[in-house]
């Protein structure tokens, strides 16, 4: 190898200077420095650096966007490294400042997995809790309905992880509701469970309600928030395609007035207005909190009761603190069935529907009465519950070598509280002083306790 020592090489003509020939390798030795200060370095489309590139900034060559790698590439952020949001950058998804996590979702049974009462109920003309736990049906003389907990096997809601939904089918239509008729799917939260919204303070938070919905009816419908001070704030959503699961996100304004009581009574209610008479449709959608006016409750009227062809289904309900879009909505917090079930039991419990299930034993102090059968609730209920039961003939008083069918049409509710009940039962020709065990005859016997909101 020969060496040419010069201080400068210039083109012989013009301004282009070429070093070497295609296929050549030009090596800059270790320890040498290649300085391009204040010069423009035109690089080829692809630069291959098999070791490490050190720079303080990477920016787009033109415009405002650049791509990092190609589809299928994997980029590893090493252990101990940190990716920092400067504070206002977007695209980071959930951040500590935008998301106030809760240990469990605010909505109990939002995935419609638990249905203690029944998985279907037909001929519904009134209001109440009929199938899926916590899901209230408000029907003021607007049609007749079948309600079911519907298993999902396909569709976008199923693909999003929801195996069950709450569904209603109209079985007797009311195409011309009377003025006071009203139909609403309804969920109620305790006041003590929504204090993080800081309603009634200068730091009041906004609300986001997200859910999956499917109906044969298309068009715009209304969702209402109600507080415990007879105030309302509303939003709307649009069902774009019939019989297709669609994910909806509805946001609601904050309210710096009218704090919600911090107790176990109804504090915040979410109502999906489905149909109504003229008393509820002539106003405007209240996008800011206001004193509730019936005329504002179903302005965007889906008219779900106008045909027996109509149905409406919902699942994946979530309530979040703050305002979200589809780009940054926190994921639905799925619970185990057991955790979900236990949370439902705060509001409703059922024991029975299994042959010979026991309700404790009591003592016989007259020839017809057994008392002191103590039943402890597995979960403390919200309030002292109402008690209902199957026919008394579905219960045995077992003792003194016999199974004696209960005679009274009502088991007692002595000492009932949020923690349990000490029930009594009536038989015939019982042995005074003996102990009798209250239990079901077969799978038709049950006792229920309800402390719903």
């Amino acid at each position: 190898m020969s060496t040419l020592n010069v201080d400068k090489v210039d083109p012989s003509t013009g301004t282009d200077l070429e070093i070497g020939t295609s296929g050549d390798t030009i090596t800059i030795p270790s320890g040498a420095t290649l300085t391009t200060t204040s010069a423009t370095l035109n690089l080829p489309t692809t630069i291959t650096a098999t070791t490490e590139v050190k720079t303080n900034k990477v920016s787009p060559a033109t415009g405002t966007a650049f791509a990092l790698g190609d589809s299928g590439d994997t980029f590893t952020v090493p252990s101990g490294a940190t990716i920092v949001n400067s504070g206002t950058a977007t695209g980071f998804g959930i951040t500590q400042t935008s998301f106030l996590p809760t240990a469990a979702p605010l909505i109990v049974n939002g995935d419609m997995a638990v249905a203690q009462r029944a998985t279907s109920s037909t001929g519904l003309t009134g209001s109440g809790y009929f199938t899926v736990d916590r899901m209230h049906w408000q029907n003021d003389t607007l049609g007749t309905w079948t309600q079911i907990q519907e298993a999902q096997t396909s569709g976008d809601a199923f693909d999003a992880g929801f195996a069950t939904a709450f569904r209603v089918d109209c079985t007797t239509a009311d195409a011309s509701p009377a003025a006071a008729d009203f139909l609403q799917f309804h969920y109620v939260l305790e006041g003590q469970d929504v204090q993080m919204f800081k309603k009634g303070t200068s730091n009041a938070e906004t609300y986001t309600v997200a859910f999956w919905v499917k109906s044969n009816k298309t068009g715009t419908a209304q969702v209402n928030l109600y507080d415990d001070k007879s105030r309302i704030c509303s939003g709307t959503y649009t069902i774009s395609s019939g019989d297709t699961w669609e994910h909806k996100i509805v946001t609601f304004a904050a309210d710096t007035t009218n704090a919600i009581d911090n107790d176990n009574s109804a504090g915040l209610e979410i109502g999906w207005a489905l149909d109504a008479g003229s008393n509820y449709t002539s106003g405007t959608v209240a996008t800011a909190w206001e004193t509730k006016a019936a005329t504002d409750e179903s302005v965007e009227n889906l008219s779900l009761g106008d045909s027996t062809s109509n149905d409406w289904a919902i699942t994946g309900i979530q309530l979040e603190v703050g305002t979200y879009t589809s780009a940054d909505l926190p994921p639905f917090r799925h619970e185990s069935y057991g955790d979900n079930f236990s949370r439902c039991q705060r509001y409703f419990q059922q024991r029975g529907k299994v042959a010979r299930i026991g309700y404790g034993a009591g003592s016989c102090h007259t020839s017809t009465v057994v008392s002191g059968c103590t039943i402890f609730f597995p979960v403390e209920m919200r309030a002292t519950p109402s008690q209902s039961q199957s026919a008394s003939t579905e219960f045995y008083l077992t003792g003194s070598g016999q199974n004696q069918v209960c005679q009274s049409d009502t088991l007692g509710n002595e000492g009932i509280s949020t923690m349990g009940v000490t029930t009594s039962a009536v038989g015939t020709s019982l042995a005074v002083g003996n102990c009798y065990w209250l239990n079901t005859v077969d799978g038709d016997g049950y006792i229920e306790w309800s402390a719903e909101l």
Partner: protein
Amino acid sequence: MITSAKYWKNVTEEEAHSIKAVINGVSCLVPMDNENTDYQNILKWVAEGNVIEEAD
């Protein structure tokens, strides 16, 4: 929908602490507790002019 209501004394009690009501076609014992929403609804039902029957 409440269709009937009657004060209820358990067989071991001398005073009624509950109301036996038929709500949505289901007979139930409703404790006279202001936090119980069934009881709240019975009170509204009474305010509309209905009457709770005396206990047997």
